[in-house]
């Protein structure tokens, strides 16, 4: 009888864990990436503290948005944080992924970001981002590619109504 109870208990625990793990993974997947921003070398204008905080917040959200959009092939997270060329490009990527049955899981291990340009009128900022990212491409549920690398990104953010949005996002081999 005791054995039966133990078995039932074990089965329950296994069930609970198996249910909780994907949930936990999802929570982790949706969590914000860690971003460090350095604005000391921004030219020609000095970045104000308020702007620095806003950029840090919105660039972090932008990467969170990319992760969610590419993993789930949804456009909503992109519309909130991207505009212009970057938005067009990512939207196309999501649409193409969806059409081909692919998705991309980005495991974001952090960004070291430096503001290299802040326009004199305060409307645009260029960021140089060294990102540690593990990229997994999935065909249905199967991982068909996985790599981990440090990638250099250049991002141009411009001020929108209530936030900064990424207008250009380009990776470079430099």
């Amino acid at each position, binding site marked *: 009888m005791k054995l039966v109870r133990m078995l039932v208990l074990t089965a329950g625990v296994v069930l609970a864990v198996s249910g909780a793990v994907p949930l936990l993974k999802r929570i982790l997947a949706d969590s914000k990436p860690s971003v460090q921003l350095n604005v000391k070398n921004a030219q020609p204008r000095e970045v104000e503290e308020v702007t620095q905080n806003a950029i840090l917040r919105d660039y972090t959200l932008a990467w969170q948005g990319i992760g969610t959009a590419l993993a789930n092939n949804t456009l909503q997270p992109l519309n909130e944080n991207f*505009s*212009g060329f970057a938005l067009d490009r990512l939207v196309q990527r999501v649409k193409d992924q969806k059409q081909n049955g692919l998705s991309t899981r980005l495991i974001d291990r952090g960004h070291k970001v430096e503001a290299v340009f802040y326009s004199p009128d305060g409307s645009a900022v260029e960021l140089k981002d060294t990102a540690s990212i593990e990229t997994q491409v999935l065909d249905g549920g199967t991982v068909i590619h996985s790599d981990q690398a440090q990638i250099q990104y250049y991002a141009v953010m*411009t001020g929108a109504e209530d936030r900064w949005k990424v*207008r250009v996002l380009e990776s470079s081999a430099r």
Partner: protein
Amino acid sequence: MGRILAVIFAVLTVGLIAIGTVHGSRNAQASTPEGAVQAMFGNAKGHDWNGAYSYVASSSNVDQGGFIRDLTGRNGSLRTYSQLDSVNTRVLHESDTEATVRTELKYATAVGVSFDTRDLKVVKEDGAWKVQWPAEKEVHVPPQVIPVNYLRWDIVWRGAGDDWGAQNVENPNCRILSMNAVERDGGLIIMGEVENEDTVPAFITVGAVLTDNAGKDVAEESSFDKISHVLLPKEVSPYRIDFPGIKKSDVKSVRMTHDWMLVPASADPVIGVLHQRIEKDITGRTVLKGELLNESGTTVNIPHVLATFYDNGGKVIWVSDAYSDHALLPQTPQPFSVALRDDLAANVHTYRVTVNHYSREN
């Protein structure tokens, strides 16, 4: 038994209706001067013009149409956007045949509550008190041609497409010229002046955020209608921001917020402010009085007068405003009056009046 009960209940019902109805009647003959004024305005409030006019003395020399226009307004003025809310009366002087009744009329207008205090003469006619209505002189602007060099700014904005980098017209440069925070009537008031320094018209809003000693924002208010929102090039407007119930000692700092927008605007109408002087009104309160003169050829429906009062150091010590309940007809002077706090009157060295306006689209 049943029939008696039926009669009792029928009588009871009719009695209750009678009590309720007689109690609310307002068309009785006025037995007091105050009663006449109250009854006249009571009927006017209920739009019973015949009833109201029946309390007007025949010696008033006003026909019913003119009387109604006096009460309901003309030319799209603020009075035409008003409903009478309440009437307070007080007899200043009374004899057997004549009395003077101070009447404070409270109106609900399209821009807020408005008060109008008048000393009405009440006379006894045929044994009943009647109001000698001071008929307003109806102004008729003579036919004429007023040449206008029509000057306005139109704006062509950037297209709707997201053409980043494409040039857009810049918002104007404006500047808050001064800011003075004072505590009055248990609240904090922030006032000062703002100027459009640019060569294009500006639409401005000015607000303030108060921060307490812990650095936390405690209140946020805007100048609302205590400012002229459209400023032409080099135009200066006063502003006043009220924070009711906040003490100056509880505030560590004030953060001014503003927004300057480029808007299409017209340079007309030009409204002159003539013969400004500080004096006492009939209630003994200090007011700034004068006349408004619409120098353009179109009617200004609702003028809004903003007065800035300065001390001898040129500091803004008070900003007050008033809406005129009469429209400004072209080339026709119209009196105005703006309240000034009695306790500040002695400190006022100079003042400046600007006129904001609303004109109905035709």
